[in-house]
């Protein structure tokens, strides 16, 4: 398995731990990550609001880089996954394609639409497979109740993402089970984290994040896990402010998807960047009987 690795902006900056964990897990599972320092930001949905055609063109450039290398693209962020897939979809419209081609051609770039965009969650569940992951687990996450938090753009709009059911997805829960943990089902798992308006109207964004964390908690979750670093910002980096907004103690550890996998495959908390979180993951680690990996 070999992919053009598209880490996205946040995993290279404030969410560096996501990149660390992805590399650790990929090395273990034989996923080869080919790096392209020429990848740009996906626009994160914000660029699309300012200039839709520029957003598609910028992502067409990213997709062309992978296509030229003959590789599919691996994302580790629901929003990157959404934006790059959205660009692929828009480029199926001949009018849009002509406008984008017109802007790319003078740069000597062409994109024929072949690059498939795949999120790490999909690679783990569809290509590596739950059975193989289960067989490689060294520290089963037995007893840990984990609420999956999918992130909007991995799922919706479902006809554009062409993914599993957007209303009742189960891939993440299947993976959590394969790691030995117990998935928690709650409505909030397919809801929004509030991030897109965190810098527009923070109290509202925090109320939305709070609602999902409280929902997971009410259903017994010891921790939540997300395949999107933007959700991680809302749920972890801002959890102190979220707690204040909703007026409740939350103390909910939030794992990045590959951190949870890495933990089960035997990585140390440091190798996965867990100390970089704003909300301590210790309560979850204690449930697992500390951090020592059984021999």
């Amino acid at each position: 398995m070999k992919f053009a690795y598209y880490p996205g902006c946040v995993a290279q900056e404030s969410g560096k731990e996501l990149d660390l964990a992805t590399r650790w897990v990929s090395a273990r599972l034989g996923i080869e990550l080919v790096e392209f320092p020429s990848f740009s930001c996906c626009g994160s949905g914000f660029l699309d609001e300012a200039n839709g055609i520029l957003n598609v063109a910028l992502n067409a450039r990213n997709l062309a880089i992978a296509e030229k290398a003959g590789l599919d693209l691996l994302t580790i962020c629901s929003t990157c996954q959404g934006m790059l897939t959205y660009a692929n979809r828009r480029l199926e419209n001949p009018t849009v394609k002509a406008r984008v081609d017109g802007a790319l051609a003078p740069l000597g770039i062409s994109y024929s639409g072949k690059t498939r965009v795949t999120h790490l969650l999909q690679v783990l569940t569809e290509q590596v497979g739950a059975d193989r992951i289960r067989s490689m687990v060294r520290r089963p996450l037995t007893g840990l109740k984990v609420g999956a938090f999918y992130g909007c753009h991995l799922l919706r709009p479902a006809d554009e993402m062409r993914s599993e059911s957007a209303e009742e997805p189960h891939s993440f829960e299947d993976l959590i089970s394969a790691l030995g943990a117990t998935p928690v089902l709650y409505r909030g798992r397919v809801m929004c984290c509030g991030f897109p308006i965190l810098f527009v109207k923070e109290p509202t964004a925090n109320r939305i994040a709070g609602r999902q964390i409280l929902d997971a908690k009410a259903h017994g979750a010891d921790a939540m896990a997300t395949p999107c670093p933007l959700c991680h910002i809302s749920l972890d980096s801002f959890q102190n402010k979220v707690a204040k907004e909703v007026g409740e103690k939350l103390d909910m550890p939030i794992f990045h998807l590959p951190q949870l996998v890495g933990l089960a495959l035997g990585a140390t908390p440091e190798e996965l960047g867990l100390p970089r979180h704003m909300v301590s993951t210790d309560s979850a680690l204690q449930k697992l009987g500390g951090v020592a990996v059984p021999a």
Partner: protein
Amino acid sequence: MFAAEKLITVPFDVYRYDPTRGGEPRYQHYELRLAPHTPILSGLLRIRDELDPTLTLRYSCRSAICGSCAMLVNSKSRLACHTPVGPEVAEHGRIVVDPMRNQPVLRDLVVDQKPFWTRYEQMDPHLIPDPLRPMPEGRPTQMTPAQVDRFKETPRCIACASCYSACPAVEADPEFPGPMALAKLYRFVVDPRDGAHKARLQKIQTSGLWLCLRCHLCTEACPKDVRPSERIRDLKELAVRAQGGTEPGSRHAIGFMKNIEEAGTLNELKLVRQTSGLSGMVAAAGQGIRLARKKPELLKGPKTIEGIAEVRKLYAALEKDEEVPL
């Protein structure tokens, strides 16, 4: 002739609540023998007509046209008249029916839609002619197919309020008008016969447009493929292009665009300044310092990508592109 469909047992758990009588909402269990293709609405009406005349629900056309019977079926937004019982029983073993969200329950499955309609009315959802270009009298105004194409999705809306029910921004903030109201507004903003484009965009920029989370829950819930989240996206781009960064939301979108032009990748710290200005930076400083202790990269800023010149050329070619929306 078709072979007769085998009947199946359909367990219903239906939300019951009468706020005028107090007490807590509860689920009432009913069982029917139905053909798998039977619409859930028909099942509910049989319960009401044969088992329990107190069950209260709203419906009319039974043909997915009137939008009255939107409700939650096993937690999913559905028109009850358009959803067969068979697949739900196969998937979930039963059919749990709840009233729509984000609207107060009047009784059982009937919700108070007043806020939904009020917000719609606040959009002035009718043509406002341009006084300088009066509509021709005695003959219809004409539009080109391309002009009609720009709002071909919105007239499909049947005002069932499924989008309003699904929307987390509606749930969290009374300022947000909701997906349907904004999709309808979009329809008038791009209608060439309407003379109030600018005023409409100006008004909505300061009254909730930028609270849309683009989570696409509305588009997923819509039974008519109106795709409200995409219409809201179009409205935002139109607002940005017509009026620039007048609000935190449009400033953020424009700030983001400029941010990527500089290094090709996001500078998180700089973006806060671009959206919120210096005063916003000061207000966010406490949280910023807390974050930077664990995440020192925040203060360093990103490495410029290779090929940034290509990115900037794309900007130069498309930044002034007037042909909107996509």
